[in-house]
């Protein structure tokens, strides 16, 4: 069993739950949050706009009381609204700097609603988490409106908020008014500081968190706060077993990597630290030998893979999309951050920042004239007259992030040695991705379907682990693999990333999209999927891993090549190939990478 946090789709524990139960739990979370907002910090609400979300929020608002201010972070504005900033209109009118407080200050002791929390920029997450550290932190309600399972609230933010509630699948009938009232909450608040925590309750919560594989110290701390709030709600002067049970269900369970007891032997504390290999044991029975073999294969691959494959791949991408040539990573004109890239006339505000010197120099020549024409101007008033037309804003460029998706054929037809070589090739390219600070994703297909082994990440150590644990054998459902890749590519495009796709396969599909065997339909499906992938505009590379490719190089079987054509991809036969073809491919790619460098 793999880390459920990487889960794709989202972890759902067992049978579908009763809607009313889900709602009751969400309602209880709202009540506890209202009782102890400081200890519980907030909630992540995985729900798209709708009745359930509105009802929950309305319930919380009623319970928090009128005194608590409510604010909403305007989406898409970056961190600017959170932090104190210059009120430009007032500043110009008054002729002195006037600062407007940020939302983090204004929402102190209140609630800050953050919509679209799964798409927040890093800067915003940073500002929020920093705001949550302070003693006067607002209660943060983050709406996670992700459509795809891998669109999630940043872990750094999620870790700091006690509750994670999913309200998406609720039937309309399940939503009912919350049972507790403001008076209940007030009574509980008054009691809160008198609730004692017996040592065994604390120990139980901590042990529970450890048993679920939760490493962070925040969840058990917040679970303790939840237990205390629950006890206060029921008028108990000490945390009872029931309170601890509810708290661990509400705070700990949604974060569980595994369930306590179920996978006892996997708990990290039972493992010596150096033994961090994944547990999918089946692929590595004679361990030492297999590793030695892998090492040798890796060496062989290293010798024959052209350098800077990825750089060349993505350089090709830019050429195709007509983008400007630049150094690694296509440049994206982001308005808020990055390296300065010129100044133009325009109104600051939102994410456009004022270029002061340019503004002042634009205004300077007009000063005498404006002073004369200004009504009621006292002589000797040296105040600058700055008008709307003078305002200049600064533009920035930030390097666009790049996602490289590796689609690895782990089927039986990619004979086991070739699989090891393919792994070697991916590893080499991972190294390159690391140097370029790209993120990578790993898709493998075998038997009846495809699996996302690793959602997009920059943690390459994890990519390597996932790769090492990849078993081989079974049919060749190429179409399924390419479909997963396409979904990833489309998501990444929406996030504004450049995408590169590397397919390692022999190109001989024998499982169709619907999971049925048969070479004909499977091949047709694969080519259709390949064309679909080409339509995303992602740069792609097909590395032919067929045994034939190893022997004859460029004169390999046609399947992988025609797949490459359908994908509009570059084609490359993996090792063993004649020196001539590799040199040719390397030459082709390095021409591309020269273009990328200058």
């Amino acid at each position: 069993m793999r880390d459920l946090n990487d889960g794709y789709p989202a972890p759902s524990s067992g049978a579908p739950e009763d809607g009313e139960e889900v709602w009751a739990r969400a309602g209880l979370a709202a009540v506890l949050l209202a009782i102890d907002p400081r200890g519980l910090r907030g909630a992540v609400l995985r729900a798209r706009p709708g009745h359930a979300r509105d009802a929950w929020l309305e319930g919380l608002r009623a319970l928090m009381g009128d005194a608590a201010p409510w604010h909403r972070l305007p989406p898409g504005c970056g961190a600017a609204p959170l932090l104190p900033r210059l009120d430009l209109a007032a500043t110009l009118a008054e002729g002195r700097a006037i600062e407007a407080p940020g939302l983090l200050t204004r929402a102190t002791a209140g609630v800050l609603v953050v919509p679209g929390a799964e798409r927040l920029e890093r800067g915003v997450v940073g500002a929020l988490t920093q705001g949550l550290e302070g003693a006067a932190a607002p209660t943060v309600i983050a709406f996670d409106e992700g459509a795809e399972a891998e669109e999630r609230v940043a872990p750094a933010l999620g870790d700091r908020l006690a509750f994670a509630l999913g309200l998406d699948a609720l039937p309309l009938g399940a939503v009912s008014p919350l049972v507790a009232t403001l008076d209940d909450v007030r009574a509980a608040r008054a009691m809160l500081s008198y609730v004692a925590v017996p040592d065994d309750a604390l120990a139980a919560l901590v042990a529970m968190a450890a048993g679920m594989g939760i490493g962070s110290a925040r969840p058990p701390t917040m679970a303790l706060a939840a237990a205390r709030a629950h006890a206060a709600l029921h008028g108990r002067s000490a945390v009872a077993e029931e309170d601890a049970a509810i708290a661990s269900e509400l705070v700990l369970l949604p974060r569980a990597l595994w369930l306590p007891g179920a996978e006892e032997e996997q708990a990290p504390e039972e493992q010596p630290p150096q033994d961090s290999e994944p547990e999918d044991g089946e692929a590595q029975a004679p361990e030492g030998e297999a590793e030695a073999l892998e090492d040798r294969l890796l060496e062989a691959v290293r010798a024959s893979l052209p350098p800077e494959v990825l750089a060349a791949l993505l350089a090709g991408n830019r050429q195709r999309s007509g983008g400007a040539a630049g150094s690694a990573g296509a440049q994206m004109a982001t308005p808020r951050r990055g390296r300065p890239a010129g100044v133009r006339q325009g109104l600051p505000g939102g994410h456009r920042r004022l270029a002061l010197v340019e503004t002042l120099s634009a205004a300077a020549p007009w000063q005498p004239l404006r002073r004369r024409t200004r009504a009621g101007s006292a002589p000797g008033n040296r105040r600058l007259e700055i008008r709307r037309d003078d305002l200049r804003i600064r533009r920035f460029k930030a390097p666009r992030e790049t996602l490289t998706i590796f689609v690895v054929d782990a089927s039986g037809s990619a004979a086991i040695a070739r699989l090891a070589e393919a792994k070697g090739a991916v590893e080499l390219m991972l190294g390159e991705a690391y140097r370029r600070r790209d993120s990578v994703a790993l898709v493998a297909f075998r038997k009846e379907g495809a699996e996302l082994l690793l959602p997009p990440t920059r943690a390459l150590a994890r990519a390597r682990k996932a790769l090492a644990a990849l078993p081989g054998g079974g049919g060749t459902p190429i179409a399924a693999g390419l479909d997963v890749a396409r979904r990833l590519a489309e998501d990444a495009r929406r996030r504004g990333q450049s995408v590169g796709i590397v397919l390692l396969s022999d190109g001989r599909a024998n499982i169709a999209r619907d999971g049925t065997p048969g070479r004909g339909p499977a091949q047709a499906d694969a080519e259709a999927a390949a064309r679909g992938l080409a339509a995303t505009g992602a740069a792609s590379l097909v590395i032919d891993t067929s045994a034939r490719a190893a022997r004859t190089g460029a004169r390999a079987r046609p399947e992988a090549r025609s797949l490459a054509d359908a994908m509009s991809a570059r084609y490359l036969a993996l090792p063993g190939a004649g020196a001539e073809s590799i040199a040719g491919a390397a030459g082709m790619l390095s021409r591309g990478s020269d273009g990328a460098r200058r």
Partner: protein
Amino acid sequence: MRDQEAARRAPQFPFSAVVGQDDLKRSLMIAAIEPAIGGVLAFGDRGTGKSTTIRALAGLLPPSPGVEGCAYGCTPENPAPVCEVCRDPNRREVMRPVPVVDLPLGATEDRVVGALDLERALATGEKRFEPGLLARAHRGFLYIDEVNLLEDHLIDLLLDVAASGENVVEREGLSLRHPARFVLVGSGNPEEGELRPQLLDRFGLSVEVRTPQDVASRIEVVKRRDAFERDPAGFLADWASEEEALAEKLQHARMGLDDVLLHDELREAAARLCIALGTDGLRGELTLIRAARAVAALEGRGSASIEDLAAVAPMALGHRLRRDPLDETASTARVARAVAEVLGAPAEV
């Protein structure tokens, strides 16, 4: 920025009450004793108390003389030429706490380096510099949470200033420089992305922070955290004497640092260790020796021993090894092996 001021005035979790995390605490104390060490990098899981521990450090350090209203952290006897407050003959000298400045992830270059003073520029058209976070961190600590996610050009800039001790501003028609000597402390979670290797070895010390593995310490972590959040004042009072003792120890170490003897054998052992590990350049060796000296000072000994060297070797060298980015063999293990091989049985002092 006012938010930050407010956050800092709020009570901080006491350093001595942090459960476990000995490596992190030790590396921070070394940096406090010997600021020339070149910064600390703390990498590890979420929620392991990295930020808490780093922010707590400020509480251990004694206030130092400064000038009221000075934005550059000048010492009264040697103010920065750009600082107008300090050049005023009627200035008031005060004791100021050691600054621990947070650098938020979304910070712009303007805020870090400093920028044209908008107020003056708009009101009078006068060109004046408004100092940024670098100036505020002078003589203190600059803390970057999630340093691995910070934009590269900002990291380059920070490391450059940290190494040179001076912030040189050439922008927006401004041309000036002011001292900015601070200890750079970075933390991050490697799961979310690694730091570029060429930046790694610019940090003096690097430690891995892990979740305590035994349930008893975990319980203690939650217990103390909870107690602190319920009643900060009471918690601080409970820990006041421990905190004071540690502060005193640290202060002694700072005073005694220059008197710690370094034997030639120690320098030689450091050199051999670095050669055995194949670390590039002399920075590693220098850091190793400085860290060993700081540890000796912390323990109140007159000379640094081979044990001191062995104790700091993992944090001083672990991140300087040439490594395959995909190789997961813990670098600390490699250092430990080299320490055992090169230094052999710990020599007596």
